[in-house]
C-alpha cells in the first residue's frame, strides 16, 4: 500500500476489513496510531516536502475517521466504493407520511406545557426507527447482492432524513433550555 499516494480507501488506510460493521475501539485506536505518525506536530522541524505531505495525510486520516465512525457516512462511503449511485431515489409514500407525522409532533412540542416530556417521548420513537434502519443497513451490506445494495441505499437515504430531524430536535432542545 502506498499510503502517501492519497488514493487508497479509508478501510485500507485504517487496516480494517471493508464492511459496514466496524469495531469502534479498534478504529479509534488506529486513528490515534496513525496520527502519531503523520500529524504536522511531528514535522515542525522537517523539510517542506514532509510538512506538506504530513498535512495532507493528517487531513486524510481525519476525514477517514470521521466517515468510518459515523454509520450514515460509512454507509454512503461503502455504497460509493461499490459503485452504487446515491442520488435520486424514490422513497416510498409510507416513509414520507411517517416523516410528516414526526415533524408535526415536533412542532406541537413548542409551547406545550409538558414540552420536556413530549420531547423525550419523541426522541425515543426516533431512536427506535433509526436503529431499525441501521439493522437494515447492516443486513443488506452483509448480503451484498445488487438488490440488497439497493435496499442499503434506500435505508441510507431514509437515515439522512432522520439525521436532519435530529438536528432540528437539538435546536428545539436548546430553545426550550433557554426559555
Amino acid at each position, binding site marked *: 500500500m502506498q499510503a502517501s499516494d492519497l488514493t487508497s480507501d479509508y478501510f485500507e488506510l485504517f487496516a480494517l476489513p471493508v464492511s459496514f460493521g466496524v469495531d469502534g475501539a479498534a478504529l479509534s485506536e488506529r486513528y490515534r496510531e496513525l*496520527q*502519531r*505518525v503523520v500529524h504536522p506536530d511531528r514535522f515542525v*522541524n522537517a523539510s517542506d516536502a*514532509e510538512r506538506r505531505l504530513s498535512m495532507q495525510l493528517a487531513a486524510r486520516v481525519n476525514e477517514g*475517521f*470521521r466517515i468510518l465512525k459515523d454509520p450514515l457516512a460509512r454507509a454512503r462511503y461503502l455504497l460509493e466504493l461499490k459503485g452504487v449511485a446515491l442520488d435520486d431515489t424514490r422513497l416510498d409514500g409510507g416513509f414520507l407520511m411517517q416523516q410528516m407525522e414526526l415533524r408535526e409532533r415536533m412542532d406541537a412540542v413548542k409551547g406545550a406545557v409538558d414540552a420536556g416530556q413530549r420531547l423525550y417521548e419523541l426522541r425515543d420513537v426516533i431512536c427506535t426507527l433509526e436503529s431499525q434502519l441501521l439493522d437494515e443497513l447492516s443486513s443488506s451490506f452483509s448480503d451484498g447482492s445488487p438488490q440488497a445494495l439497493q435496499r442499503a441505499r434506500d435505508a441510507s437515504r431514509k437515515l439522512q432524513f432522520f439525521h436532519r430531524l435530529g438536528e432540528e430536535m437539538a435546536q428545539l432542545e436548546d430553545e426550550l433550555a*433557554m426559555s
Partner: protein
Amino acid sequence: MALLQISEPGQTAAPHQHKLAAGIDLGTTNSLVATVRSGLAETLPDENGSHLLPSVVRYRLGLPPQVGEEARAALIEDPHNTISSVKRFMGRGLADICKGCSCSEYDFAEGAGSDSSVPRIRTVAGDISPVEASAEILKTLKACAEKTLDGELTGVVITVPAYFDDAQRQATKDAAQLAGLTVLRLLNEPTAAAVAYGLDRESEGVHVVYDLGGGTFDISILRLNRGVFEVMSTAGNTALGGDDFDHTIAQWLAGQAGLGAEMTVHKMRALRAEACRAKEALSDVESVSVAVPRDDGSVWQGELDREQLNALIDPLIQKTLSPCRRALRDAGIELDEIEDVVMVGGSTRSPRVRERVGEFFHCEVLVDIDPDKVVAVGAAIQADVLVGNKPDDEMLLLDVIPLSLGIETMGGLVEKVIPRNATIPCAKAQDFTTFKDGQTALAVHVVQGERELVSDCRSLARFELRGIPPMAAGAARIRVTFQVDADGLLSVTAREQASGVESSVQVKPSYGLSDSEIEQMLRDSMAHAEEDVAARNLREMQVEARRAIEALESALASDAALLSADERTRLDAALEDLRAKAEGSDHLSIKQAIEALNIASDGFAARRMDAGIHAAMAGHKLEEFS
C-alpha cells in the same frame, strides 16, 4: 548583528541540543510567557518579579510605547493613547467593535489611505492597528524570555481562544510576525490548559475545560488517551468575559451614585476600575464598601455584597451555559461521562461562577492550577515538544475548528464546506457550477459561521476565478478546495476541472492587514531598531537553510536505506550545494538552493511517510489480512 553558526559540511550539530522555546498566553487583560526548564514548565517573571504583564500599551509622542504595568497606570490619566483589551479588536471591523461597548473609549480612524479596512486607533504616535498594539505586547514578552533564558527563542506557541475565527487567528499570527517571533503553532487556550492539567494528573477519559477570561469565553470537551488529547467539540463567545462583569457592576454603581448617562472616558475608566476592585474583593469576603465620586465633587459611599453581585453577574454566567450545552451535544457526550471540569481564566476565581458551573456539569471543578497561569504553562509544554526537545514524547494534540466554513451560493445562501468541530488539519473539496451561459468568471466568497444566510456569517475573503472557457450554464465543473492547517488557518483553491484554470488564496481576512502593510510595518520597526532589511532577509534565509539541512540530515540518518545509490548521490549534491550557498551572502540563491533540495527530497519524504505508516499498522495487517 550576531553571525549564525553553520556547521562544517559533513558535520551535524549535536542531535539533542536543547532549543529555547516558549509558550505565550496573549490575554485580554494580562499576558504571560512560560518555558520548560529542567523538565519543569513555569511562567517567567519580569525584572520586577511579576509574572503577569498587563495587556496594555501606551503610545507616546517621540518615545517608544510603554507596555504593561506602566501603561496600565496611565489608563485613566491618558485614556486616548493607552490601549487596553486590544484582543477584543483583533481581526474585527469597526462595525463589530461598536457592537460591543468599548468603541467610544477610542478615537477610531477608518483605514484611510491603506489597502485594507483594518480599524486603527488614533494616538499621539499615529494611527495604531490592533495587530501593532498586540505586537508590542509580544515584543515585551519576547525580550523578557530572552533575557531570562539568556538566548534567542527558536520558536513559540501562542494561545488563542478556541472560538477565535480565521480572521482573529490570522491577526494573532500577523502580530507575532511583526514582533519577530517564529510561531511553531497557534494553540487553543482550553487545549493548552488541558495539557497543563493532563500531564500533571495522567488522567484518562472525558474532561471539560471552562475558560472564562477577561474578554473571551471558551468551552472545550476533550478525551484523553495515553498522551493523545482529542478535542471532541468546542464552543464559546469571543465577546464575553470578566470585562462584561466589570461593565455591569460599573453601571450599577453609576445608578446607585446617581450619575448621569453622559460620562467622560476618564470617569468611565475610573468607575470600571472601582467595579473591578469590588468584584475581586468579593471573591474572598461577603461584602465590600465602594466609593464613587459625583459630578458635584462629593463622593457617594455604599456597600456591595455577594448577593447583589451574584444578581448582577448571573445573567452573564447564564450566557456561558448555552455554548456548554451545544458543546456537549456536538461531542455526543452525556453528563455522566465527564470526569471533571478544569477552570481556566481569571473570571473563574468568582465563587459564583464555580458554583454555577459545578451545578451545570454535575461534577467537581478543578481549580488547583492558578487559572491565570495554566494556559501559558500548557503552551510552554507544547512548545518544548514541537521544537524537538522531547523527541520520544507521546503527547499529541488533535484540535478542531470552532466554526463552520463555507462559500456563498446563489441567493446569498451559505453552502457549508467544512462543518464546525471538524478535526484539523482538514481538507475538503466541493464542486460548483456556473449560473449563466458563457460565464467566464466566478466570484468566490468565503464565509465562516453557522447561519444559513451569508449576511449572518463572518465574511473571510473574496476572490475571483477568471478565464473559465465559455460553456452553457451549469456545464462548468469548478472544484473549490478548502484546506485548514494545524493552526486552524484556512486556504482556498478554485479550479475549473475541464480547462484546469486555477486560482487560489491564502485567506487574508477582510479585516486583516494586507501582506504589503505587514511588510511596511516591518520596515518601519526595523528603521526604528536601525536594523538592515537586507541583513535581516539574509539571516532569515540562513536560518531556513539550516533548518532544511538539519531536517534532511536527520531523515538520512534514520532512513537512508530507502534510497537508491543514484537518488542518494543527487540528494547529497543538492545538500552540498545548499551548504555552500548558505555560507554566501545572497539570500535569493540560498532560497533557490532550498527549493532545489525540497524537490530532490520529495520522493524520499513520501517513502519515509509510508514506512512510518506501515510500521504503525503492521501488527494489524497480519491478524486481519493474512
